[in-house]
């Protein structure tokens, strides 16, 4: 199998202390599981079940008001015990108590003869379509239009990134089936990005075009790979699937039952032994992190995803739909005297040479302190260093702030997702909320252009 090498320069590696070791721990059984509609960007949920309803594994729980084929199904068999709502009755969590062992089964035709339409129909009916996200905008894939190409990246570079070699090791067969189904759907191989040295390279996968990516974060983000391999143009669609989700899709085509498996890397510098856990989408955080390991749970922040682009979750909350990472970092609500002095407090990671942090090697401890206050954008040329793409990040952010659709479009909004701006957020001297701004820009595009 010949792979093409792609080198993505710029960016930076944060090297945080407390990365999960590739070793599987035994998670406590989670009693309750939850689905959070916020995990699906742009989805407007309409509930299909009520509190007290019994549900089977794979039974639709809600669908998108605008497109009923976008269904989110239950990851377990059980009973809906609570629909948690917030302000304006916004649905925050649908909590399902695990009970029984019922599942919705689909009859799968012989995989060697299965046709495009059947594959698509099965993806829609089973809810497995939710594993696929569509660019532009990173919304759940719409079955109405097939993509020009499909991207899967096992090259993950975010801080606390999960090691997909480890996650997929036992699931290569399912992974291959997933690849086969997807490549049949678009009549061409799917694009698989891998790291410089990895096991997957030797796995003799078929129906894939392999790209070997050389680079630090954010080169693991699909946007930067797509930009180099098959840039997204106005009016085009690309699908992006996380590697484990592709294995889940493969498992569905093998068994006929929706597969909600999730291997999570639980990382954090305060954990006694950060490692991986085999669990299920939506399981409770408390089943993955023992509160006894942490001195006072209030002093920590739990993040579904990596510390740059994940979303905050309470200890009493649940694992997100897509993330293979659960990060635990200290809250940084302390004052620092004269903390703005250059070359002081070098233990705080900083890309800026106004700190000696770059000279000190080793793994770094982090907390959630903002390390300053938000200011007008003054420093220039800083965002570009962490945005290896032919897009001007600062100008795009400003276009998003103005809500200038035409500018956003021609500056490349279709090619980015908020998480691509994770390092921009991190490194910004003026503490500009780049991801938030880009997200609002994308929301506007979705509403006005669609």
């Amino acid at each position: 199998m010949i792979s093409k090498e792609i080198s993505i320069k710029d960016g930076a590696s944060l090297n945080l202390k407390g990365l999960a070791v590739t070793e599987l721990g035994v998670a406590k059984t989670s009693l309750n599981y939850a689905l959070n509609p916020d995990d699906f960007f742009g989805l407007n949920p309409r509930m299909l079940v009520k509190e007290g309803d019994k549900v089977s594994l794979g039974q639709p729980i809600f669908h998108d008001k605008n497109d009923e084929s976008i269904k989110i199904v239950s990851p377990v068999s059980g009973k809906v015990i609570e629909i948690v709502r917030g302000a304006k009755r916004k649905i925050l969590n649908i909590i399902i108590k695990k009970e029984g062992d019922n599942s919705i089964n689909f009859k799968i035709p012989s995989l060697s003869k299965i046709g495009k339409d059947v594959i698509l129909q099965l993806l829609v009916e089973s809810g497995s379509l939710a594993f696929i996200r569509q660019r532009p905008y990173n919304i759940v894939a719409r079955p109405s239009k097939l993509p020009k190409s499909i991207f899967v990246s096992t090259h993950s570079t975010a801080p606390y990134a999960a090691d997909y070699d480890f996650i997929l090791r036992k699931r290569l067969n399912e992974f291959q089936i997933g690849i086969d189904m997807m490549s049949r759907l678009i009549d061409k191989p799917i694009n698989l990005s891998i790291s410089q040295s990895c096991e997957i390279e030797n796995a003799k996968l078929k129906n894939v075009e392999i790209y070997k990516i050389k680079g630090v974060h954010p080169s693991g983000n699909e946007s930067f790979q797509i930009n180099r391999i098959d840039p997204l143009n106005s009016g085009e669609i690309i699908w992006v699937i996380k590697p484990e989700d592709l294995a889940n899709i493969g498992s569905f085509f093998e068994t006929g039952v929706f597969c909600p498996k999730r291997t999570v890397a639980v990382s954090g510098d305060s954990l006694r032994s950060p490692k991986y856990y085999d669990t299920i989408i939506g399981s409770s955080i408390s089943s993955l992190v023992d509160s006894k390991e942490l001195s006072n749970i209030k002093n920590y922040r739990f993040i579904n995803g990596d510390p740059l682009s994940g979303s905050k979750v309470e200890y009493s909350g649940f694992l997100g739909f897509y993330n293979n990472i659960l990060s635990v970092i200290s809250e940084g609500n302390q004052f620092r005297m004269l903390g703005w002095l250059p070359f002081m407090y070098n233990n705080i990671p900083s890309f800026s040479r106004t700190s000696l942090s770059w000279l000190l090697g080793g793994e770094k401890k982090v907390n959630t302190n903002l390390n300053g206050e938000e200011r007008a954008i003054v420093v220039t040329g800083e965002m570009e260093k962490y945005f290896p793409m032919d897009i001007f990040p600062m100008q795009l952010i400003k276009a998003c702030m103005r809500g200038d659709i035409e500018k956003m479009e021609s500056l490349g909004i279709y090619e980015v997702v908020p998480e691509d701006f994770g390092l921009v957020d991190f490194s910004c001297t003026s503490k500009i909320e780049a991801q938030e701004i880009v997200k609002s820009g994308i929301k506007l595009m979705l509403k006005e252009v669609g």
Partner: protein
Amino acid sequence: MDFIRKQVDVLKKPFTKGGKLEKLYPAFNAFETMLFVPDHTTSKGSHIRDGVDLKRTMITVIIALVPALFYGMYNTGYQYYIQTDIQFTFIDAVLHGAYKIFPMIAVSYAVGLAIEFAFAVYRNHPVNEGYLVTGLLIPMIMPIDMPLWMLAISVVFAVLIAKEAFGGTGMNILNPALTARAFAFFAYPTFMSGDKVWVSEASNVDGISGETILGTLAANGEVAYSSASMFMGSIPGSVAETSVFFVLIGALLLIVTGVGSWRIMLSGVIGASVVGILFNLWGANSLMSFEWYNHLLVGGFAFGIVFMATDPVSAAQTTKGKWIYGFLVGVFCILIRVFNPAYPEGVMLAILLMNVFAPLIDHYVIESNMSMRRKRWQSIKLQAS
């Protein structure tokens, strides 16, 4: 530290929401955040943040200015004492300079920060750190004998017109410090040029005078200083811009820390050198035949290109744009010096001119990126049809 923190918390009470002095919170906040980096945690976007902030960036620039400022104090005293018959030591010279310069710095900060605080309270936004640098730059680029009231008025003009009128820090088109100098230059020309302003006390004591090298050249005079003096800075000039050596120490800090754009500095030097060499070949008058490398050493060129042209807000913002902008600053600096003897120092006007053109340069750089993308879209559409 805990003790100080507790005292600050007590003082803070009236300024917080519902307190008597609530409206003055931005002013209090400015002092509080000077003492302590706040305990704010991230609420959206990335959960972890770089240790750098605007305060740290601005303070780095101030540290970079200190060597030039210190030498400026010495040179002020030196220029004064060598024209009197008084025996003097290094300390005497520095003390004389400090005696003259500190009041200028104090006035600049007091007037400028007062306006900044007033606007921050009026607009209810935090005080931006930008003026910490501007406020030090302004006295450093003025003639030493400038009356303090003139300095104050120049500061008012710069902060109100060049900065706040455009929306405050980060929004200005022109570099505020240079705007202050340009204002003084055109409003009080007799205090900003000639041979009676560049040496301390020259305007009061008859026997003391001193023309800048560029002024001498513009009058077709003979330059009495060696390249070494020009490099070290023992020549008459504005307060702290004469020493290329000490400016370069600051430049080194700015480049190593990444706070100042090396691209602008380098392309500026290239631009000035190219034009300087061309004029040397032409050599029609004494300014044209003045060696190109000396052009880089005299006047405010080094100071301007290191500390003023690199101001990220008023410079070009794109990488390509920075190369073009810096190059043109260098080119125009020498052009103005040579072709316009009324303005023997070109760097101030060159940078202000390019400040105005920087958004245009960026516009074309960004436009080319956007048209590249549109072309890609169109070629795809053509293939499809």
